[in-house]
């Protein structure tokens, strides 16, 4: 099975861990410990620095992987609130749905333009190659006849 994008995977696993009764720091720590992608590694560093008392904005500035897209920044804001003791279950639920719809939209958009995009290699490479293979011997024997 293909893995989902890092933030989505982390979000889903964290929600499950929170439901199991763990604290946000414990849940996040458990989730990122089992993952090896760049996003999870950065999140691990973020968590350590946040627990050390640094500000979210300052940490994100030094970890470009975390601030690359709007969704990631939003997720960190929610996590920051959670680390401060606020209830974030509903926010995480909404964020998960948002992530799901944005991934679904990306797939849909890609699927819509895929047939058109596939025409390019077909017309530029594959069909000429097949035609050359079929017509090559014919042209060769025509030339030999002359």
């Amino acid at each position, binding site marked *: 099975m293909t893995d989902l994008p890092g933030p989505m995977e982390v979000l889903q696993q964290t929600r499950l861990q929170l439901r199991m009764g763990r604290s946000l720091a414990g849940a996040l720590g458990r989730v990122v410990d089992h993952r090896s992608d760049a996003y999870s590694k950065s999140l691990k560093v973020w968590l350590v620095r946040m627990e050390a008392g640094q500000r979210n904005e300052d940490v994100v500035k030094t970890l470009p992987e975390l601030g690359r897209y709007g969704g990631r920044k939003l997720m960190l804001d929610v996590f920051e609130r959670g680390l401060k003791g606020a209830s974030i279950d509903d926010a995480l639920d909404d964020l998960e749905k948002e992530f799901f719809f944005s991934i679904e939209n990306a*797939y849909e958009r890609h699927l819509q333009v895929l047939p058109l995009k596939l025409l390019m*290699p077909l017309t530029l490479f*594959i069909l000429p190659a097949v035609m050359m293979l079929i017509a090559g011997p014919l042209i060769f024997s025509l030339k030999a006849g002359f």
Partner: protein
Amino acid sequence: MRHVCCSSFFACWFFAFLSLHPQLCSRFGRFFSCAEKTLRQKSLFGTFYSRPAWTFVAFFATKAAIFAAFFVTIVVLTAQMLLRERKKRSGDEIEIFVDHLIMSMRAGISFEMALRESVQGHPHRLILFNNHHTYGQLLAHCRDNPSQSYKLLEVFRQTTRLRNKLHAKHRTLSLQAKAQGLIGVALFIVIFVFQWLMIPDFRNFLRASSGRFVVILCAFLIFLGTRWIFKIGKPPEFQL
């Protein structure tokens, strides 16, 4: 497609049969107003393509080869999909298992009882669930805290459904592109083998350096085209 393929193969066999019987062949030639002389004479088109009957055979056989390439690719892809489906069943099994648990709990049955009922007759479900790190943890937590189990399982089911939906989309996307690429490669191979076996002039064509160059160029173009198709078929980067 089956009809076109069969008609092409039938036409090939018909002309092969004709060529084995010279008398029938000459009669057939006369019927299509090509005299026996015309069939035998050597013209500027060489020995093979000058014969109208063989040109006919070549046309139908090439058509048949193209359809055969599609047929082979479709068979291979179907087999691959069936194999994947078999692998996917373990994911479905987990979803069915959780659905059953939730439904039983909604009906008022305790978690332990629901678990016992769901596993009855399907002991592999529990093994599947326990084999996965997170799922195993989840089940252990539900056992330890039965009062939280319903909410937890609902969240898990929601998450699994979203994941499965996205995986299905991902598979569709990559399979669509892969099918096109594989058909291109299969078409090239089938046409090459067919020409090699059935058309004597093709071997003369390959003996010439220009012929070899054309075939290598064709293979290179197919390689480039397939690579491009596979690249296009990759899912986009998600801006999350």
